[in-house]
């Protein structure tokens, strides 16, 4: 029994057999072979290498004709690497001397070369070539035996060095019961999705994938950030009890409030919606009692595509979500790329200060064609459901008018072409730049709703990057300046007769639910969705009047520490069942 410590990013506990993903998504069925299987492994290896070589040479020729010999060079270089007898000998030695299965011999050898390359700044840029090569040989080795992450038939704990956004978005929560990962941090893609799907996950484990063999029993403790490899009977028993107990508590709460509105004792209602990254999350959100989707982060369409998503691709995704929502509202946020969200297609050149650079709506205005594709898809989808659109990162009226002009032009285009769209589709903007919060009263004249993005609003207001460990503890949602901006935004919206949603993480932390209610928020969009019942329960157990008094009191405090302490105290007093 071995225990590893990492960063918990997905809640709960999972117990199951490890499913190892290596070389970007290829699973290695087993690691060792017996003495009499060695020669068979060697011929399998030789055959796979020769197939991979043929494939690479054919590819090089094809690409050379289509795109020129310069582009094809990389494939001929890969083919040449597979003709490297020294490299092939390293594979064979591992099979003969260490009884590695052919797949493991290849993965292990290439893994060692990759580490060596990564250590050297000059060679690091070639490491992806080794990944490609490894993956290609492994795919030939596995042939029909290849097991895909997308077509799992049994429950597993997914173990990987790292996961690409496209892999995480497509994984099947019915079979992936837990995730353990060498790489990753608290704000990465895996964290967001695992948490959204309610999959227990621990990341930042360093080298767990190397220590695991496929089939090993693993316990993932997503509360404490522990991974237990090869647990003894007693440990398994203890964890089973904890898991079942937690599931029971959750089920009870869910059964109690799922179909009820988040309405205070004195009849004030807040709509509770959910944030999603992909339409696949809609069903889960509804199951947990979400009344719609308050934030669809469409940039995940970019992050998970090999190419820039077309209008059709956008449309298909929206339609998938709309069909599952059955008339419930969905707020589609136009792509919010840039800052920390790049890495997929369409990445612009690096900027010195990406969070203050061409991110989000600024990027869209620079690439109006991509933006129009998305807006057309939204307009087309608008007749099929309760669709709202919102623009992220708006910092001033000029920007807002510029995007609205593009939308208006497209609506005219649809009108003239006789194409159907919802003329009354609500158009809103996110309030996440302090400038927008400060003159929210002016901006409110131009939109149908606001949605407050607390993550960016806090980061920009306090000048704190919370992924920077040196200053992370100064990221304070209860900072008086932040609270005043929230109040200004909400009051400005209500004075202009529009509603305000809040889709940042602050809205998903049960600590703040009472306060946000008291500030007058009309809608909370929550992630992960399993928090929906808890938030509903809080709102149903207090009165709006009390919440307003609490908000006024907290707003009047000039010190963060006192505000934090006071809010914790009020939470405990009013809601002892949730805040012990």
């Amino acid at each position, binding site marked *: 029994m071995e225990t590893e410590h990492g960063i918990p990013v997905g809640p709960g506990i999972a117990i199951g057999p490890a499913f190892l993903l290596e070389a970007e998504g290829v699973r290695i069925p087993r690691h060792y072979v017996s003495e009499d299987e060695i020669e068979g492994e060697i011929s399998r290896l030789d055959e796979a290498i020769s197939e991979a070589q043929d494939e690479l040479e054919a590819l090089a020729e094809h690409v050379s004709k289509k795109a020129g*010999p*310069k582009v094809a060079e990389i494939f001929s270089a890969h083919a*040449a690497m597979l003709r*490297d007898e*020294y*490299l092939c000998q390293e594979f064979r030695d591992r099979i003969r001397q260490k009884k590695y299965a052919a797949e493991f011999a290849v993965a292990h050898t290439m893994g060692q*070369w990759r580490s*060596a390359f990564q250590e050297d700044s000059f060679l690091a840029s070639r490491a992806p070539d080794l990944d490609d090569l490894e993956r290609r040989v492994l795919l030939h080795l596995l042939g029909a035996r290849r097991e895909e992450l997308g077509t799992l038939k049994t429950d597993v704990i997914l173990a990987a060095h790292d996961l690409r956004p496209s892999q995480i978005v497509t994984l099947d929560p019915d079979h992936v019961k837990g995730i353990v990962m060498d790489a990753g941090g608290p704000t990465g893609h895996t964290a967001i999705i695992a948490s959204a799907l309610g999959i227990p996950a621990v990341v930042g484990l360093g080298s767990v994938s190397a220590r695991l063999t496929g089939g090993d029993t693993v316990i993932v403790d997503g509360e404490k950030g522990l991974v237990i490899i090869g647990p003894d009977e007693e440990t398994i028993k203890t964890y089973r009890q904890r898991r079942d107990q937690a599931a029971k508590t959750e089920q009870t709460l869910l059964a109690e409030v799922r179909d009820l509105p988040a309405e205070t004792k004195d009849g004030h209602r807040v709509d509770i919606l959910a944030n999603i990254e992909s339409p696949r999350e809609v069903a889960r959100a509804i199951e947990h009692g979400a009344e719609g989707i308050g934030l669809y982060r469409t940039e995940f369409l970019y992050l998970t595509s090999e190419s820039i998503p077309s209008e059709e691709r956008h449309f298909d995704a929206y339609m998938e979500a709309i069909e599952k929502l059955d008339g419930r509202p969905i707020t589609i946020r136009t792509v919010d790329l840039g800052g920390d969200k790049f890495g997929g297609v369409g990445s612009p050149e690096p900027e010195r200060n990406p969070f203050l650079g061409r991110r989000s709506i600024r990027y869209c205005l620079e690439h109006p064609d991509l933006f129009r594709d998305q807006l057309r898809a939204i307009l087309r989808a608008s007749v099929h459901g309760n669709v709202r659109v919102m623009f992220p990162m708006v910092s001033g009226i000029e920007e807002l008018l510029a995007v609205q002009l593009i939308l208006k032009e497209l609506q005219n285009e649809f009108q003239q072409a006789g194409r159907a769209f919802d003329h009354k589709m609500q158009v809103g903007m996110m309030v996440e730049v302090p400038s927008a919060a400060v003159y929210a009263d002016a901006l409110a004249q131009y939109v149908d709703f606001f949605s407050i993005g607390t993550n960016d609003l806090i980061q920009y207001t306090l000048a704190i990057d919370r992924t920077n460990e040196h200053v992370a503890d100064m990221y304070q949602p209860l900072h008086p300046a932040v609270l005043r901006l929230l109040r200004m935004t909400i009051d400005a919206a209500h004075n202009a007769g529009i509603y305000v949603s809040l889709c940042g993480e602050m809205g998903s932390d049960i600590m703040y639910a009472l306060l946000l209610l008291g500030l007058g928020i009309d809608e909370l969009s929550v992630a992960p969705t399993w928090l929906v019942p808890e938030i509903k329960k809080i709102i149903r157990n207090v009165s709006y009047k009390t919440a307003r008094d609490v908000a006024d009191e907290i707003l009047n405090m000039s010190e963060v520490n006192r505000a934090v302490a006071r809010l914790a105290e009020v939470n405990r007093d009013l809601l002892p069942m949730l805040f012990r």
Partner: protein
Amino acid sequence: MTSEQKHSIEIVIGNPLGFHIRPVQRFAAMAKLFDSHVEVELRGQKAPGKSIINLMGLAGRNGDTMRIAAQGPDADQCVQVLAYIARNDFFVEDHLDTDQQPNRHVERLASLASCFKSDITATVDGRNVDAKNASALMRQGVSPHTALDFQVLGEDARQARAIIDNLVSNSYYIEEEMVRKGKGGA
């Protein structure tokens, strides 16, 4: 050519990108054409000269000194050829400047031929020219686009032919590039 020989030579890497994947690929491909065992030493680290992955692992930068050593029946020719290509940017910049320097290819052909003991004769339009003599080849109007036949006679004929074939077949690449750009075609 039966005796075991040992030869080595030091060169300075003169490629702005260093001993990167293409230079390494070219170097290893050439080394493989010889029977001798080849070893490259860089900053005290040694790697087999016929292995792309091991050579890449040396992480040779522009300006690094590299020792090329060969042991075997054709060690002398091997070291000369490898040192020549290493000193000439590993021949990887061809596509960039053959337009400006059409004679470069001919100089390379003659220089590589000169690394061997065999007599190497090129036939151009029915006339025979000593392939080790660059100016004679140029006088016959040989360019990267000229169709050439070679006669190779001598003890290291096999290796000499392999090296020349390698050079010539790699210059198809140049031709294709030029034809594609509409500039070439003999």
